Every structure is written in structure tokens, then in C-alpha cells.
């Protein structure tokens, strides 16, 4: 029966009934809704408006159309920041993905004390970046007898300047990030490893696959959806790195660690260019969206794996 055949009265009654049935559910979502509208939807929409203004939020507010976007083409520091952001992702994502997977395979063995090791590896991940920065600022000190240089000295490598060296600063922060996060992704890999049904291995053995071959034809294909997830999540994280850079280097030395987010922060809060910072935020959003989309597209298995 289509609604067109219903008489208006019956139609109205059905609608009234539907509304009455709906009403009791709204109180359950109203707080969620208010929070998302106020803190997400509204700022998100207003960002597009602010991006067309030149404003310091105090006295000055001037409509400039698309000037903020045009300005990006000539902003050399932005170009450097984007280069640094992608370089950081390259220094951070591949080592993190590989290390966390290897550690997951290591702790997935049925040996005593595995639970203990898993917890230990997870510890840096639950510690906040300010604490890690306080500690690692001291460890990465350029002095000969600071912890890392001392350890390097033991194997005959001369003292390095780490955070003070324009070629090492970004890599040092990426290293700190990998150290902090490998435990988290280890847990994700572990869940995936343990979700592989044992019968698949048995079937593989029946088909004559052993050892490495078994892993190549069973483990690796089945881990592929998880690999896609880990790569996308770590890349999105890398493109938004901020805390360690803010505390440890402040974007320096000589802008060597000025990343996209740091540039946005600095334009807004050091130079009070809130319109331009909004336009940059839109750019950052688009970059992350495109990269996440492309990665999802090419990493995911479209067909069912089993």
C-alpha cells in the first residue's frame, strides 16, 4: 500500500503515531547532539567563513575573499612545513608499522611471561607527551655524557646534536614517536594475529604449505585489512604531530621541525592571523582526507580474503 492511497486523516494519524513513538528516544541523544553541534559542526562550518577574513579576533576584521588561499602559494614557510610534514610521516610510519608487527609476532608465541612483556611495551603509550618530552630532552642533550651520546660513545660513534641539528631533529622526534606508539599497534596486530582461525593453518598444511610458505599464503593475506588500518591511522597521526615538536624544538632549529600543524598554531597564536590559520586548517583537512582516501583505496582488499 503506497502512501498516496491513504486518506489524509489516516496519513496524519500515522505520522502522529510515529512522532509519539520517536519522542521518548530524543532525551537519550540530546546531550551528544548539543556537544557535537557546539564543538564540532559549528566550528567546522564557521571555519569556512573565517577563512575568507583577515582577522586578529580583537579589533581587526576585514573580508578578503579567497586572498588567504592565494597567499598560500607565496608562503615559503608553509611549503617547508608541508615538506617537513611528509618527511615526518615517512620517518615515522614505516618504522612504526614494521616494528609493531615484529614485536606482535614476537609476543604472540606461547611462552611464559608474555603478558608481562606486552604490558611493559604498552607503558610509553599511556604516558603523556609532556612527560616523555621532559625525559627525552635530557636524553637527547648534545653533551658527550648525556645518555644517548654516552651509549653511542660506547660503540665508538661520536656525539650527535640530535634536536639541535637541522638534519636530525625531525628524525629524533619521529624516533620518540615510534618508541611511544609501537606498543599500541602491537596490541592491534596481536588481535588480528589471534583472530586468524587455526583451521586455516591446518588446511594450509594439508595443501603442503609449511613454515614461511604457510605465513605467506595464510598469515600475510589475512593481516592485510589490519595493515591498511594501521597504515591509515599512523599516517593520519603523523600528519597531525604537534606536542613533541611544540615542547622539544618549538619548530626549530631554523624551522627544521615546523610541520603543518605547528605552522597553523604559530600563524594563529604567534602572529594572530586567525583568518589565514583557518584557511590553512582547511588545507590540512583536505590533505589528510585525500591521503587517507588514497591509502584506503589501494591498501584494502576489495575481495573477501576467506
Amino acid at each position, binding site marked *: 500500500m503506497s502512501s498516496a492511497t491513504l486518506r489524509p486523516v489516516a496519513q496524519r494519524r500515522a505520522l502522529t503515531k510515529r512522532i509519539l513513538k520517536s519522542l*521518548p528516544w530524543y532525551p537519550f541523544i540530546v546531550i551528544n547532539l548539543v*556537544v557535537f553541534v557546539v564543538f*564540532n559542526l559549528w566550528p567546522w562550518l564557521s571555519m569556512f567563513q573565517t577563512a575568507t577574513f583577515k582577522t586578529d579576533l580583537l579589533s581587526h576584521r576585514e573580508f578578503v575573499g579567497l586572498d588567504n588561499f592565494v597567499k598560500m602559494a607565496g608562503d615559503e614557510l608553509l611549503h617547508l612545513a608541508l615538506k617537513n610534514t611528509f618527511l615526518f610521516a615517512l620517518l615515522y610510519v614505516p618504522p612504526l608499522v614494521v616494528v609493531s608487527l615484529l614485536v606482535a609476532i614476537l609476543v604472540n608465541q606461547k611462552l611464559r611471561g608474555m603478558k608481562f612483556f606486552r604490558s611493559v611495551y604498552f607503558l610509553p603509550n599511556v604516558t603523556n*607527551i*609532556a*612527560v616523555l618530552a621532559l625525559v627525552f630532552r635530557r636524553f637527547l642533550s648534545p653533551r658527550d655524557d648525556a645518555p644517548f651520546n654516552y651509549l653511542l660513545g660506547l660503540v665508538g660513534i661520536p656525539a650527535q646534536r640530535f634536536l639541535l641539528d637541522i638534519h636530525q631533529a625531525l628524525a629524533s622526534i619521529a624516533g620518540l614517536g615510534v618508541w611511544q606508539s609501537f606498543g599500541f599497534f602491537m596490541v592491534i596486530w596481536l588481535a588480528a594475529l589471534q583472530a586468524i582461525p587455526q583451521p586455516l593453518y591446518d588446511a594450509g598444511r594439508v595443501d603442503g604449505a609449511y613454515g614461511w610458505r604457510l605465513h605467506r599464503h595464510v598469515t600475510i593475506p589475512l593481516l592485510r585489512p589490519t595493515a591498511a588500518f594501521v597504515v591509515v591511522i599512523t599516517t593520519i597521526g603523523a600528519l597531525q604531530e604537534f606536542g613533541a615538536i611544540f615542547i*622539544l624544538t618549538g619548530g626549530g632549529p631554523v624551522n627544521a621541525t615546523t610541520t603543518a600543524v605547528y605552522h597553523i598554531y604559530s600563524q594563529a597564536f604567534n602572529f594572530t592571523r586567525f583568518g589565514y590559520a583557518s584557511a590553512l586548517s582547511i588545507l590540512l583537512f583536505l590533505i589528510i582526507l585525500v591521503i587517507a582516501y588514497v591509502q584506503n583505496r589501494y591498501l584494502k582488499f576489495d575481495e573477501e580474503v576467506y
Partner: protein
Amino acid sequence: MSSLRPQAQRSPLTLLRVWIGFQPNQGLRTGFTYLLMGILAVSTVGPFIIMLSVSLTQNIRFLLFPIDLIPSPITLENFQLLFARTLALRWTYNSFYVALVSTLGGVFTSTMAGYAFARGDFIGRNILFYMFVGILIMPETALIIPQYIMLSDLGLVNSYTALIGPWFASIFGTFLMRQQFLSIPRDYDDAALIDGANIFDTWLRVLMPQLIPAMVTLGILRFMGNWNSFLYPLIVTTKAEMRTLPVGLGTVARSGGDAGLDMAGAVLGFVPTFVVFLLGQRYIIQGVSLSGLKG
């Protein structure tokens, strides 16, 4: 499989082993595994142990190797200095207050909304659900500037409302709780309705008691997430007394004081999440696994 060859394919490592004529036995392999894991464990925990020992050392300007892991004498001087020179006590209070209210609020609203999305049949349900999914893909950092502008327009910079607000609802939490409600058979709801309960009673008295573990998991993850957040509390607070502990410690790190003072601050920021981690690690690891699996 059509590509089956009679001889099993060997990994490069196996080939190497055969070539050098070395077949490690199980015991050796286990020993090697423990060695690797031990080195990794030392590199993970070591910095924290050094942090603790330096924080208890007297008059320590620089952190240099070799180091005495057990300082003599053991002193709390660095902590006294930290509380005297900085607002660390106030920051700790702020962090606890904000994290607790955010956690309780977030778990509460997630449990409510999760229930509505799992069981409710209301106008706009699907649109709202997709809207939430849409918000989930918004990168947090891209929203920081407009959020600050909005809060500044409302005069809410340097307020607890600003620090807690966005944490008072959680999309991840809503999805998680929705999945949990879906995993409970509808028979429970039906039985409760026959007994005369309304949907509120059904939610509070019949379904929620079964979801306490999920709520604890979500609560711990939210507490950790809130306590460790840095960029958002940094931009919505400009007054020193409104900072959260991580943001406050960030300013300590940038001010270049003694190693002892720095490490005392680090210990202060480390202990709360460490304790929560010790008590709730089962839940945390469960929660992380959940977030990684599809569905």
C-alpha cells in the same frame, strides 16, 4: 592452489641455516626470543626508572651517564621545589577535575546515545548516525583554530567548560556502546516491557548492569585520552592557573631548569596514568583491540 610445487618453499632464513649447517633447537630459539624481548623491555622501562631516580637525587643540574640508579641520599627536594616554583599542584587538580568530569560525562552520554541508536526507532536516526560518522573522520587538529575562535567569542577561553565540553560526548564511545547493546538479545527488552517497564527503566535497570565491563573499558580509555591530551588544552587556556598538568609541564620543559626539577615534574605527570594503567590494563588492551577490529 594451482601453483603447488612438490618442494616446499623455504624462507631466506631457513636457506641460510641449511647453508651454514646450523639448526637451532627449540631451547635456543626461546632463549633468543627472551633476549630480544628483554632488551626491548629495558629500552621501554629504562627511561622511566632513570626519570624516577633523578627526581629523587639532590642538586642535579644535568642528566648524565653513568648514573647512580639509587641516589644517595634520597631526597624529595625536587618535588618541594616544583610545588614552590610552579603551579604544579593547581595543574594536577585541574587535570584530575577535568579528566574525571570528562570521563563520567562521556561514558554516561555514550551509554545513552548507544542505547538509542541500537534500540530506538525515531525520526532522523539514520541521518544523525551518518552525521556522527562524518564528524569522526574530521581530523582533530584541523578544528583547533575554529574551536578557539568560537570559545573566544563566547568568552569561554580559560574555563573548565571549554576544557571539558568536547569530552562530554564521544563518538567512538557511542559506537562502542551501540555495538554492546546490539550484542544483548532483544528478549531482555521485551520481557521488561511486558513487566511494565518503560524504555528508560529498561536501559538503566535491565541492560546497563550487563554492560559494566564495557563502560569501565570506555571510561579508562577516556580518562587516559583526556589526561594525555595536549594541543586542545594548550590552546583553550592562556592563564597559568587554568592549565592542565601536561600543558603546565610543557612550559616547565621549555623553561630550562634543573634536571631534578624536570624529572620531578615528569614523575608527577607519569604516576596517575601509570596507576590507572596498572589497575585497568586488561580493560585497556581489550579496548584497543576492539578499536582495531572491524565492526
